[in-house]
């Protein structure tokens, strides 16, 4: 029992560490791109710390550089609206008490949700949530600072294939729960809707539309 727990804990740390390295590299590219787009260093570093949502940060930098600050906020918030249902789903792992909720809410990101959902035991869920959130907060911001300092010397992370690492990691974390037929139907329908509507709708909306997959839920209670 104890050995099994320790093994589970150390494999979690290793898995989170792998994603942490990728996040560090993408954080570096964010820092470099934001500085190249003309944002002052302090703004780039501050944004990474207080927003801590990569997709919306890349989008905001692009739209601010294009002279469209309102779109930067609107598009960024549309992209981040998914965190509300995510918060509902992992609230148990965040824990109780105001301090945990205040801090835990800030490190609620796609990866911390994915690692949490891959665990079923309450203690394991809590550990997965906090370890993933804290690790990625540090690696994203450390990467961002380094990217700001190195600037143009940071290469294109796509050359390293890191853009393939994230979806692959998400799929690996999702697979166990897809063994349940209902979850599989809902998740695959949601993914299909999101991919099909991505060319047509503004970023963020297709992923939210994936919630339509819930229509495939079995009616268990009359």
């Amino acid at each position, binding site marked *: 029992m104890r050995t099994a727990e320790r093994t589970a804990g150390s*494999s979690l740390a290793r898995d989170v560490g792998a994603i942490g390295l990728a996040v560090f590299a993408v954080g570096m590219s964010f820092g470099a791109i934001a500085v190249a787009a003309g944002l002052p260093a302090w703004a780039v570093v*501050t944004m990474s710390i207080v927003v801590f949502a990569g997709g*919306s940060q890349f989008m905001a930098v692009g739209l601010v550089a294009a002279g469209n*600050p309102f779109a930067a906020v609107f598009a960024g918030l549309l992209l981040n609206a998914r965190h509300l249902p995510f918060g509902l789903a992992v*609230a148990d792992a965040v824990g109780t008490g105001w301090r945990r909720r205040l801090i835990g809410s800030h490190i609620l990101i796609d990866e911390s949700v994915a690692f949490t959902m891959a665990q079923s035991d309450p203690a394991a869920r809590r550990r997965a949530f906090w370890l993933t959130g804290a690790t990625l907060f540090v690696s994203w911001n450390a990467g961002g600072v380094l990217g700001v300092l190195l600037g143009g010397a940071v290469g294109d992370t796509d050359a390293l294939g890191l853009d393939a690492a994230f*979806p692959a990691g998400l799929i*690996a974390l999702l697979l166990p729960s897809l063994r349940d037929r209902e979850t599989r139907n809902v998740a695959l329908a*949601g993914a*299909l809707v999101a991919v099909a509507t991505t060319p047509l709708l503004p970023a963020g909306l297709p992923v939210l539309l994936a919630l339509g*997959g819930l229509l495939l839920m079995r009616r268990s209670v009359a």
Partner: protein
Amino acid sequence: MLVAVIVALAVGTYGFRAAGVVLHDRLDLPAPLRRMLPLAAAALLAALAGTAALTDSGAFAGVSRPLGVAVGAVLAWLKAPFVVVVVAAAGTAALLRLAGVP
């Protein structure tokens, strides 16, 4: 203006996150809705994985990335360790790009 953008984005994003976490207990959701939450998270994560694997800024993401993700997905299906899945996906995409595949 830049400060306003950063503040608005930070406050709004934190608001979404905290709202979900706090509302979970406040709402005292009925059992069927409660059962829906993990399914909703799975649908959102699957949608993120699907769109991130296949699309880039609203257009098709090319060939290297989807193939890299596919290699990772197959390895995950075969129960390969997580680190292997992630490294193989990235490595496949990187090698394909090195070979000139878009």
